[in-house]
């Protein structure tokens, strides 16, 4: 599913400075891997990359696909492509960002192929955001009942179902940003979109999830 939102407005409406600059050297999680050896085709270094990154990359792919078996297959294909294309890595991003971009693209292609599409459309996500008049809320958001949140036994299932309902590009951003806690700039690089677009879609996704959860957690008015 291709995003239909106005990319230009997403990019220009936000003028906040990026807090992070893309790294030009290997660092962080892949710090222990000899990047030069990897680029020179060292199989031992690549094996280390597989051992080091497989669990996290698998979790990301499962959360996008919702299918463990398919995720393992996509993971293997990701490493195969990475191994064959290692010479194309230009050190313009972290190695893991480049690797995850391959995995995410393959997972999204698999979703499109299998037609396991989300139930919400982009326009519906937009409609789930609050309305404002003269800059103020049109409708006061009803307070949530903390006891309902803690006591609801199927809370996790409810949230999971909500995330699964999101359009695929929104869901992917929620997974990468809110669950895996990658930075906005890293997510932007993985998805090849602007940081502003990541922020806008993340905000809309969170707003849509809040709206979906609202009826379940809302405090009952006093009799």
């Amino acid at each position, binding site marked *: 599913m291709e995003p239909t939102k106005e990319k230009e407005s997403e990019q220009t409406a936000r003028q*906040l400075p990026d807090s992070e600059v893309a790294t030009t050297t290997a660092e962080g999680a892949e710090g222990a891997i000899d990047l030069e050896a990897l680029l020179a085709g060292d199989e031992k270094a690549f094996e280390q990359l597989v051992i080091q990154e497989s669990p996290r990359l698998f979790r990301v792919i499962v959360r996008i696909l919702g299918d463990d078996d398919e995720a393992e297959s996509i993971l293997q294909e990701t490493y195969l492509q990475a191994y064959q294309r290692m010479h194309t890595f230009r050190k313009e991003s972290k190695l893991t960002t480049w690797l995850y971009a391959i995995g995410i693209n393959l997972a999204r292609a698999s979703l499109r192929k299998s037609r396991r599409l989300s139930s919400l459309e982009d326009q519906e996500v937009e409609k789930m955001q609050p309305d404002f008049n003269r800059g103020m809320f049109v409708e006061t958001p009803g307070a949530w009942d903390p006891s309902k949140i803690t006591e609801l036994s199927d809370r996790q299932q409810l949230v999971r179902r909500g995330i699964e309902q999101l359009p695929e590009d929104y869901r992917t951003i929620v997974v990468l940003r*809110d669950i895996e806690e990658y930075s906005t700039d890293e997510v932007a690089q993985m998805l090849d979109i602007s940081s502003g677009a990541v*922020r806008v879609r993340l905000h809309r996704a969170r707003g849509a999830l809040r709206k979906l959860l609202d009826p379940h957690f809302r405090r009952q008015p006093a009799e």
Partner: protein
Amino acid sequence: MKALTILKTALGLAPGCKKVNEFLAEYVDGELDDKTRMQFEDHIGLCGCCNHYLDQYKTTISMTKETMEVNVPSQLAEHTLTFLRKNADFSGS
């Protein structure tokens, strides 16, 4: 909201609910500069609507974090290495 804040908002000197909502993700993620953050906190401190919304927004994020547990297969990396040995010019160790 207090009258002064309403007046400031009307005059465009302080952010209104819509502006606060627009930058909520940056606020929650700690990506706002100090001056803007303080303006937002002034507004949120006085506005019941934004207060409720912010609380629910944060709760939604924390519930998202705690959900979607994934069990990683124990032989995951080994399976991948076996796949590479079969399908690529890769011998590994």
